[in-house]
């Protein structure tokens, strides 16, 4: 019994001690939860721990073929926490020298390993929790850091901190740069990056970060993150080939004419899809850059290109037809106190409307318009025709900041309406529109009167697989009667056939359009030299329009300033490049219009030549199973491919394209140097007697 009492006594004592501990635990719980409750609760809300957004990868902006125009490249900032707790003094001391050696070798060779080691030791000793090892490294370099001594132990044990950043890259640099735009950042956001920002941004993730010494936030290890969701890919209607062609042609014209700035837009007639949009401005350093979206944002006085609308008004009202005669008085006429002149003096007197339009006579148009619309109530009806053609409305293209067109109301006696307003307006003055808005009128005429809404984005593809397709939208299904549209189309073809733009007739494609030469800044009497805006708006192929295009060149300072001389050649070049990019466009036309045109003798890889020929739809005789060939004969007459021999020790590559020539020569073991661009016009063998023979190819 004594034993039992002793045992129970000791057991009760244990129970008592356990009870004390239990009470202590309850007390501590209450102390934390109630007595100090406020303190801890407020700390929970407070700022030594917070969740930080994890940037989602921004979606890409794509061209019409899906290739990227703008995309985000990840890069990484590499940091280290030299005082992460699991990093013991011994481990650090053992490995700091080899880490220093790696940093010397891979980060900064100018800093010796001992300098690095001293720096790391000093940072550890001073209690630093966040030191910069390298900024802006790419993925491969970042992976390399993970193999360095100490750092390879990871974030918690090795103190490696990797911070992911993003950089926005435009694949084609300047091409359509302003339209692609700039995402939110240091500079204000513009373009598609701005308009589609919400789609492109994606959904942020979350990460828990902890405040560290020096007000730096470092990710808390062991705590999970919510991964961000990638932004949507925005597929544009822009065609890289066309954009490149338009950019190159416009830039050359701007340089040749020393212009201030220029715009070129190419639009698909049937849909309103913008295939190319170029905005170039002189940047003050001697070259041109995409600096502002003048195509969408800058209204200007369109000048003669708007005569299309004036003539369409006359046609709609039945006041005139192509054969209506008007006396152009040699190109000078007075309206109230002002003299209106044609672009250059001529001797013409009585001519028909067709000729007035083709020769772009200001006097002729103004006379016809004033003749039929002069009078208190009538002037407004002329303006209302313009409004019928939607000239007073913005196009609604998906770029923010579209310029508002300014069309006066034409109300007689109102303050902005002068006696001269009607004639001047009919010639494209006293009203302003953006290049895109002018183009849309031409596009509607080309599209048999159906006005489409210009657009830049065809598809938004979200990361979760959702794809939102933007279909073409009709702004107005009929802007004028069939008769008016048909006559307008004939007039526009006539401008290139017989009128002011005969200089841009193309053997490859039939063009239609209207020149424009606007004086601007005329109110400024200080100007010694008149300033001009040179433009050309139209479409092609003239008979079956596929693309509409406008080229506007602001203030050309060389001797030429006429739309026909400055802007129209750019239009032609763009039109011809669409043929190059859409071979089937040419076949329709080449078959009909060219019969016995001499073929430039072509040499090259047989498959390449046959692909081009059958792409155009030309007939030719072929030899089976040859590799390299040349094409002889005249177009559609006895064209034949013949084999050529490139098997000599030093093959004769003259006449081949650079790519083919390099391929042939390198296969024979030569090193090749290219001089110039184009086809090989001459080949020169260097170091003939050495083992290291080189061929220089002169290209033209």
């Amino acid at each position, binding site marked *: 019994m004594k034993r*039992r009492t002793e*045992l129970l006594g000791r057991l009760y004592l244990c129970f008592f001690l356990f*009870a004390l501990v239990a009470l202590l635990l309850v007390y*501590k*719980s209450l102390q934390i939860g109630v007595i100090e409750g406020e303190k801890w609760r407020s700390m929970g809300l407070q700022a030594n*721990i917070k969740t930080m957004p994890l940037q989602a990868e921004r979606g890409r902006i794509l061209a019409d073929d899906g290739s990227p125009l703008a995309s985000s490249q990840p890069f990484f900032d590499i940091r280290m926490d030299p005082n992460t707790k*699991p990093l013991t003094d011994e481990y650090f001391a053992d490995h700091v020298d080899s880490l220093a050696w790696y940093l010397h070798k891979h980060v900064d060779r100018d800093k010796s390993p001992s300098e690095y080691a001293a720096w790391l030791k000093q940072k550890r000793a001073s209690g630093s929790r966040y030191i910069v090892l390298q900024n802006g490294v790419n993925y491969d370099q970042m992976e390399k850091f993970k193999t360095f001594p100490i750092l390879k132990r990871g974030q918690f044990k090795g103190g490696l901190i990797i911070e992911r950043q993003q950089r926005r890259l435009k694949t084609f640099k300047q091409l359509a740069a302003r339209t692609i735009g700039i995402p939110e950042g240091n500079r204000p956001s513009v373009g598609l990056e701005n308009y589609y920002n919400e789609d492109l941004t994606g959904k942020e993730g979350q990460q828990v970060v902890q405040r560290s010494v020096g007000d730096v936030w470092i990710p808390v290890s062991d*705590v999970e993150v919510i991964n961000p969701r990638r932004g949507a890919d925005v597929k544009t209607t822009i065609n890289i080939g066309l954009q490149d062609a338009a950019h190159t042609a416009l830039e050359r014209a701007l340089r040749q004419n020393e212009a201030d700035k220029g715009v070129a837009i190419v639009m698909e007639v049937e849909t309103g899809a913008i295939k190319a949009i170029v905005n170039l401005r002189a940047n003050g350093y001697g070259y041109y850059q995409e600096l502002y979206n003048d195509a969408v944002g800058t209204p200007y006085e369109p000048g003669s290109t708007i005569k299309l609308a004036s003539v369409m008004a006359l046609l709609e009202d039945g006041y005139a037809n192509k054969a209506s005669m008007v006396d152009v008085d040699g190109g000078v006429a007075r309206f109230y106190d002002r003299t209106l002149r044609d672009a250059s003096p001529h001797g013409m007197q009585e001519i028909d409307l067709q000729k007035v339009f083709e020769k772009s006579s200001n006097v002729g148009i103004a006379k016809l318009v004033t003749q039929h619309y002069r009078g208190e109530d009538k002037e407004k009806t002329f303006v209302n025709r313009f409004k019928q053609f939607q000239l007073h409305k913005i196009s609604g293209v998906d770029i923010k900041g579209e310029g508002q067109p300014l069309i006066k109301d034409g109300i007689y006696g109102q303050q902005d309406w002068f006696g001269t307003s009607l004639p001047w307006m009919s010639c494209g003055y006293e009203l302003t529109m953006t290049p895109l808005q002018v183009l849309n009128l031409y596009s509607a005429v080309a599209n048999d009167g159906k006005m489409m809404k210009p657009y830049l984005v065809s598809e938004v593809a979200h990361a979760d697989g959702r794809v939102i397709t933007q279909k073409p939208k009709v702004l107005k299904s009929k802007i004028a009667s069939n008769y008016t549209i048909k006559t307008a189309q004939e007039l526009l073809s006539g401008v290139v056939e017989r009128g002011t733009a005969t200089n841009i007739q193309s053997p490859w494609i039939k063009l239609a359009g209207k020149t424009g030469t606007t004086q601007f800044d005329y109110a400024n009497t200080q100007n010694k030299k008149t300033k001009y805006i040179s433009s050309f708006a139209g479409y092609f192929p003239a008979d079956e329009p596929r693309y509409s295009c406008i080229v506007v060149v602001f203030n050309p300072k060389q001797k030429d300033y006429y739309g026909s001389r400055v802007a129209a050649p750019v239009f032609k070049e763009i039109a011809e490049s669409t043929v190059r990019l859409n071979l089937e466009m040419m076949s329709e036309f080449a078959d009909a219009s060219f019969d016995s045109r001499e073929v430039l003798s072509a040499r090259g890889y047989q498959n390449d030549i046959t692909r081009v020929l059958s792409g155009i739809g030309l007939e030719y005789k072929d030899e089976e199973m040859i590799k390299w060939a040349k094409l002889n004969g005249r177009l559609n007459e006895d064209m034949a491919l013949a084999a050529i021999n490139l098997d000599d020790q030093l093959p004769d590559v003259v006449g081949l394209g650079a790519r083919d020539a390099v391929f042939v020569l390198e296969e024979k073991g030569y090193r090749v140097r290219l001089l110039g661009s184009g086809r090989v016009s001459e080949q020169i063998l260097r170091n003939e007697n050495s083992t290291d023979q080189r061929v220089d190819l002169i290209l033209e």
Partner: protein
Amino acid sequence: MILAKDIRTILRGDGVIWAIFFVLTACSLLAVYSATGSMAFQTYGGPTSAFFVKQLLITVLAVGVTWGLSRMHYQTFMKLAPYLLVISMIILAATLLVGVESSSARRWLKLPFTELTIQPSEFAKLALIVFVAKTISSRQEQIKDFKEGLVPIILPIVLVCLLIAPADLSTAGILFATCAAMMFVGRIQIRYIGALLVAAAIGFGLLLVIGNFLPEHVRVATWISRINEFIGVSGDEYQITQSKIAIASGEFFGVGLGNSVQRNFLPSPYADFIYAIICEEWGLIGGVTIIVLYMVMLFRCVRLATQCNMTFGLLLAIGLCFLLVIQAFANIAVSVDLVPVTGLTLPLVSKGGTSLVFSSMAFGIILSVSSYIERNPKSAAADAGHH
């Protein structure tokens, strides 16, 4: 009531302890259910229900183990005790040499031909307690003697604890404390126990020295940093601060099941810091209830002692109960910032298979004792009346 009677025939042993067992395993299921709502699970989407089902299966297994052991006569363990102890020592030694490292602690042993890993220290805990209970009860006559009473008991304790300590100091610590308490209750002289504690301190010192030479095998660095953290030298008390915020956020009635915010900030919120999460979700009421449940279990074991003689079974039940309660209180003490961070789980409640199964085994054996032990005639009658 017939129903109650049926339950009594299925669930043998102390009804209150059964009740506590079920309440605590239910807590563990709710905790895992809540875990599936945490940031980590939302992020990865994934089969969260599959995860819950896995925990459910483990729980069913645990209940089965408890039930099975409760129906097995505890005397079986007495016969097995020496063998179990030797086996556990061998696998502990093996783990120390060839174990699998996880979270920089070598505590796991990979089973041959499988992907399963087990934690041998969990097994060793049970084996040692069974052995100590057997030795103390069989040597009651010479218990006050040093050579005959103390040495045979103390040697295996020291050996097992030394084998566990290098990789898992906290487990060694609570095991040692449990054995010391058992020895105390088993009437070993207090001065011997005192001397033993001093020896333990010296042993710990030796371990530190060895650790300096074998850092891969002894986690001295972690201990020092944790102790530094606790006494506030390092200044960075991230985990503890988050734990306190969790406890305070729950106030009295909690933010509700699955609504914990702090689970996103606390490392292993469903193991080491589960008490804080329980306080946050179920309030201080919930937290205090957990403490009370463990105390009631201890009370039932003490009550059992008042009813029977000093035997192997009684010491076994008391020893296992001590083990569970000490570990529970050590876990809670971490969350309320009474002791340094240890990594001990809250028995039955914390997520984790090994811990749950071995805790269930402890419960099963305690229930077996309460069911099969021979009661003193007087108190047995009283007990029968109680039922």
